[in-house]
């Protein structure tokens, strides 16, 4: 079931060191990259069907093409602000195969005609961004980066300081510019992000780390895996009530239950499965009877009323109290709302408070009605998708596990 493309070097000892990395194919895609034109590189990525792996799932090639019409300085910003609960894949790339990321950055910069890339790493990942920085220094020493390289690319590691919302790409740029991390209003047509007014590509770590394989082996080789609409592989991860939580790379389209049972080692203590939050906390929860026929690709999970998100599954066993689980998640949203939009700032705060009443079993029918109305008021009325995500989380729990909430009503 496992297909290692991005995770190939994860288990190799000292894989973060450049000599080990070089022995294991790192930087080997670059020779062929520079023989092609930037346009050809972008085309290969478009043909491969590579989709953004930070949660959105947009076509990477299309996103790269958006920068074509812009002249002047261009930037590549790598989003390593991984903070979605249940997601820990990017951290593994940073600490176990940073040279793969660097290789991907060089190729991507070449394709979009950029000479500088910022890697925005969440502040909590200090140990791991230190490993990344050492790898970057090594790459400078060996002339893969800097002015003596075949193609000039500089990489700057930029540390965040503890704000989930900075994983939203426009908030990330705001933060990079030295502001509070408030998401920006979206333009009325699809266009790239702007860093100090210059066109900027923002991609997730795993997306960029998938680039070298595709460029070395071709778009077709990547499409060999996965489904027609969700081609390739992804670093799916599993945590919660399972025996062997971790990161396992599999092609898109694999059965969710099979993944949890075979790779996640099944439910801890031989208990029964109750539900799965499929792609990071922000994707609606799926009860066991839907999990049975769910597969790990964008289309299937969308059709089943959830989303693939970051591919970080949180598995809940039969003993988990869904009221308490929702309380945990709403506390997270309350804590992480940036406070810019009123429906989100107030909605996340009040829904968190109302959940306390359910946990204490002092809630009334009116509280349930208010919770539902808060969910409606948060959906589609804010600048970014943070509040709609919180709203869909509430809806998911109430849709599939309403009875548990009703039991808490006096």
């Amino acid at each position, binding site marked *: 079931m496992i297909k290692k493309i991005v995770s190939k070097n994860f288990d190799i000892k000292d894989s973060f060191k450049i000599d080990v990395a070089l022995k294991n194919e790192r930087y080997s895609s670059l020779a062929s990259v520079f023989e092609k034109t930037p346009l050809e590189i972008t085309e290969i990525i478009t043909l491969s069907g590579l989709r953004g792996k930070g949660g959105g799932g947009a076509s990477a090639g299309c996103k790269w093409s958006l920068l074509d019409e812009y002249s002047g*300085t261009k930037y590549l910003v790598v989003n390593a602000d*991984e*903070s*979605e*609960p*249940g*997601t*820990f894949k*990017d*951290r593994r790339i940073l600490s176990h195969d940073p040279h793969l990321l660097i290789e991907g950055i060089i190729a991507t910069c070449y394709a979009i005609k950029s000479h*500088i890339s910022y890697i925005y790493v*969440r*502040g*909590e*990942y*200090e*140990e791991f961004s230190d490993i990344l920085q050492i790898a970057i220094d090594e790459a400078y020493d060996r002339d893969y980066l800097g002015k003596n390289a075949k193609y000039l690319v*500089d990489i*700057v590691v*930029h*540390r*965040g*300081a*503890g*704000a*989930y919302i900075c994983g939203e790409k426009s908030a990330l740029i705001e*933060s*990079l*510019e*030295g*502001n*509070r*991390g408030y998401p920006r209003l979206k333009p009325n047509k699809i266009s790239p992000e702007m*860093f*100090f007014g*210059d066109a900027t590509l923002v991609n997730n770590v795993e997306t960029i780390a998938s680039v070298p394989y595709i460029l070395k082996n071709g778009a077709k080789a990547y499409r060999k895996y996965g489904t027609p609409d969700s081609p390739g592989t992804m670093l799916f*991860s*599993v*945590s*919660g*009530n399972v025996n062997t*939580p*971790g*990161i396992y790379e599999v092609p898109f389209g694999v059965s969710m239950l099979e993944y949890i049972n075979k790779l996640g080692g099944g439910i801890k203590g031989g208990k029964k499965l109750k539900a799965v*939050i499929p792609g990071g*906390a922000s994707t609606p929860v799926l009860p066991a009877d839907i999990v049975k026929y769910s597969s790990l690709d964008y289309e299937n999970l969308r059709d089943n009323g959830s989303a693939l998100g970051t591919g*970080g599954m*949180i598995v*809940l066993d039969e003993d*988990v109290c869904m009221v308490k*689980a929702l309380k*945990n*998640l709403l*506390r*997270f949203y309350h*804590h*992480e709302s*940036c406070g810019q939009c009123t429906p989100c700032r107030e909605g996340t705060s009040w829904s968190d408070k109302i959940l306390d009443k359910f946990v204490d079993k002092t809630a009334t029918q009116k509280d349930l009605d208010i919770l539902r109305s808060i969910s409606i008021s948060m959906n589609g009325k804010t600048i970014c998708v943070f509040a709609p995500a919180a709203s869909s989380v509430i809806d998911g729990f109430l849709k599939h596990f309403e009875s548990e909430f009703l039991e808490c009503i006096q």
Partner: protein
Amino acid sequence: MSFVFTKKNTLKIQELKKSYPKKKALILPLLWMVQKQDNFISEAAMKKVADITEQSYIHIYGVVTFYTMFRLNKPEKKIIEVCRTLSCELNGSEDIKAYLDYNYSNEYEILEVECMGACSGAPMCTLNGKYMENVTKEELTRVLK
């Protein structure tokens, strides 16, 4: 009280300036530098950062207060952060927090934080910023003695 960057940091700042198109982008890196140097961010330091980045003091203050990792006060004790988000809670983070509160709150400041991206190692905590995964009471007792 005034704030002065160390010589090493002053040199680093000169280098950093070359890495960004505008000085304003230096705000987060400089604030980190301040916090590393002093263990917190003082008013004087914020004024210094404002000078270097050519921004107002209040803008810097606004930035510092947005991000949870920046500290306006010097911590009196060493810090332990316990992740409380779902995967950790499902694996006993509440017990770990209670255990730490009961036994170590005199020597350590024990904080609860949201997802740290170590869900496969739940429950997890950090000790002085360093990740500890799959923590148990026994291990904490051993490490914190």
